[in-house]
């Protein structure tokens, strides 16, 4: 496949200073175009992106970075490799890099979905009004071994690789200049921590909202989003957990029955993965399939579980009396911990004991919300250079 540029530049790309008004206006215009799209309701990821790109939201996000004791300068040229099928993800990191003043080339997957195509269309529409931004936000498609792409990577100041671990390792074989930075976002296995006693005590209305939030986090991308939970960690005594399961699962299953987020193929895949994990683990229990939800009780989360789990409505269930028991099971791939019903004080104390795993702790309902800190990395800082001016040169 030869090199295709979706939004060809009309001017030569040049670096901008960080957080320029022009760049923010570009994002705001993109937001307006996305939110005006008639099809938008079918794509919750685009709705979220549309709101995220609004001027007011960006000001808010960037505020903590505006006033610093150093000068923020762009990094230079960045190459972004977008994942297949989580359509809107590439825009978040690409836009943050644009806002830092960088030039960006974004390689899109040939297997991208409809919402990517809507985005490409909107970005092309903005090319005439924002020639500078358009030239610094180039969307391309080509093979991984395309000679132009390799030449680009050989000369970038940084690259951002989204995708499977295998895809990332393979792409790393292409060298970058020594000074270039690399940010990788590979396979993740996120968890949901639920306090059994709180779940039992929630009044009906709040409980209903919790179930809706849980559904949104896990089912929006068919449980394949990196921050969607694949395992549930129940906290409490055996009896409390038993009672909480009896309240929670029927409520979730009722929602799944109404909304039908999974296909028959996915039901099959969930059963296959559950049997695979049960066969391997040896001491798994409670393999239960009801109305599109598959559950499997496990006593630990092994790397085998992590690899075999393909989403599709399978939840591994782990029961713990205290969450320190989770620490030895945590791996760098355990990105998001979404939490319901655990006291903040306990979370704080526990986090100080976690040396490996867990990059973000969010309430249930916020798992898919993009944040500047992703996988433990501050993207704004990664996409810019902090230039230090010695205090003796201070103007005050």
């Amino acid at each position: 496949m030869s090199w295709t540029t979706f939004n060809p530049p009309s001017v030569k790309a040049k670096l901008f200073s960080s957080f320029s008004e022009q760049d923010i206006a570009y994002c705001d215009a993109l937001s307006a175009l996305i939110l005006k799209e008639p099809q938008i309701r079918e794509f919750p990821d685009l709705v979220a992106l549309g709101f995220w790109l609004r001027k007011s939201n960006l000001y808010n996000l960037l505020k903590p970075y505006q006033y610093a004791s150093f000068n923020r300068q762009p990094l230079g040229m960045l190459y972004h490799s977008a994942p297949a099928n989580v359509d809107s993800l590439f825009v978040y990191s690409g836009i943050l890099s644009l806002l830092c003043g960088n030039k960006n080339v974004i390689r899109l997957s040939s297997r991208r979905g409809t919402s990517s195509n809507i985005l490409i269309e909107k970005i092309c529409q903005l090319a005439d009004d924002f020639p500078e931004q358009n030239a610094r936000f180039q969307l391309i498609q080509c093979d991984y071994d395309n000679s132009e792409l390799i030449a680009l990577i050989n000369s970038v100041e940084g690259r951002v690789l989204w995708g499977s671990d295998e895809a990332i390792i393979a792409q790393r074989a292409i060298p970058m200049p020594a000074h270039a930075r690399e940010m990788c976002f590979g396979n993740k296995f996120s968890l949901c921590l639920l306090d059994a006693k709180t779940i039992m005590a929630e009044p009906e209305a709040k409980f209903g909202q919790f179930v809706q939030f849980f559904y949104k986090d896990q089912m929006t991308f068919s449980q394949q989003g990196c921050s969607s939970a694949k395992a549930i960690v129940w906290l409490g005594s055996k009896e409390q957990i038993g009672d909480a399961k009896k309240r929670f699962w029927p409520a979730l299953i009722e929602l799944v029955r109404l909304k039908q987020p999974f296909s028959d193929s996915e039901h099959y895949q969930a059963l296959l993965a559950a049997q695979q994990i049960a066969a391997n683990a040896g001491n798994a229990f409670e393999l239960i399939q009801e109305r599109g939800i598959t559950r499997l009780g496990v006593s630990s989360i092994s790397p085998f579980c992590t690899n075999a789990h393909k989403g599709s409505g399978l939840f591994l269930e782990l029961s713990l009396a205290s969450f320190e028991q989770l620490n030895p099971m945590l791996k760098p791939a355990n990105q998001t911990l979404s939490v319901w019903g655990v006291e903040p004080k306990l979370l704080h104390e526990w986090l100080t004991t976690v040396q490996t795993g867990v990059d973000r702790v969010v309430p249930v309902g916020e798992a898919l919300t993009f944040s500047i800190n992703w996988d433990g990395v501050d993207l704004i800082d990664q996409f810019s250079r902090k230039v230090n001016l010695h205090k003796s040169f201070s103007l005050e």
Partner: protein
Amino acid sequence: MLIEQAPYELTVAKKAPLLLAQLNSLTAHHREFCSEYESVVTAQWPNYAVANQLAAVPYLAVSLFKHLSLKSIPDSEVFKTLYSSGTTGNPSKIALDRETAGLQSKTLVKIMQHWLGKERRPMLIIDKPSILDARNSFSARAAGIKGLSFMGRNHCYALNEDMSVNIDAVQQFCSEFAAKPVLVFGFTFMVWQYFVEQLKQSKQRISLPNAILLHSGGWKKLEDRAVDNATFKQAVLEHTDIPKVHNFYGLVEQVGSIFVECEQGHLHCSSYSDVLVRDAETWHPLPLGKEGILQLMSVLPKSYPGHSLLTEDRAVILGEDDCLCGRKGKYFNIKGRLPKVDMRGCSDTFTPTVRERS
């Protein structure tokens, strides 16, 4: 033992108790000798003792054999390993000991003799001769041809190495055997694409009015070309005069107990196998006439826990013991395969190949 019975004579009243007893003893056997199987049964069917009906027999997702090496025999007793065609992803790996391999051959012969008669027939194979070379020996096509070959004699390969029709060889075969009962065998897609279609295009025809064509291997590629079973049979008749065409369905995970299509166009269970159809959302068994996921049961697998498998195929059970063809047992139609799951996650499973720069 069911294996001693004729393939299509048992009514449900006679077959059901025998089948259940044999499946129960296979479940117990595999629980004892395959620890992974035991783990799955314990997790999914807690407190399981014995099945009191067919639907209660534990089942494995057939794709499990692509991911795990499941067997109920020590390595030293592995006599032969079968692999599925595996065009996508890992192939299934099935370990056979002498006993299971023997049971498979014996059963295949019993079923085939019902359709072909006891005498070996001159056999036209719709494939190229090199398909049985060592480098192809693990392919499902090779395994199928080898399995069926001993039902025939005077084997003739109908295709050249470049997949064109070896018309001289075929005509020679016809002139020699056309008057006799002949067996023609090939994979469904090969028969269509490289035989019938080529005869049609080159405006040639052959005449084998006493032949039976057996074909297997899935309809997917033909459905893409909008060729259904009736069109297939009509075209075969038109270009080859073959009046009897039977599809058969089977999995490498249950070799031997295959399901052959009768004159009514229905796939038939034999005395050595049975089927259920389950709802993919609840996994409850569905009644006759309802489409769902096909579960296959076979009394043959002793060396690996494959006696009850949930396939990835959709099917409808049409009836039991009352097919107009007169054969007993359940009969059904396949409605296609479950589509591949569309990966929607942040991390796609695609592995790019990055070549060294030259």
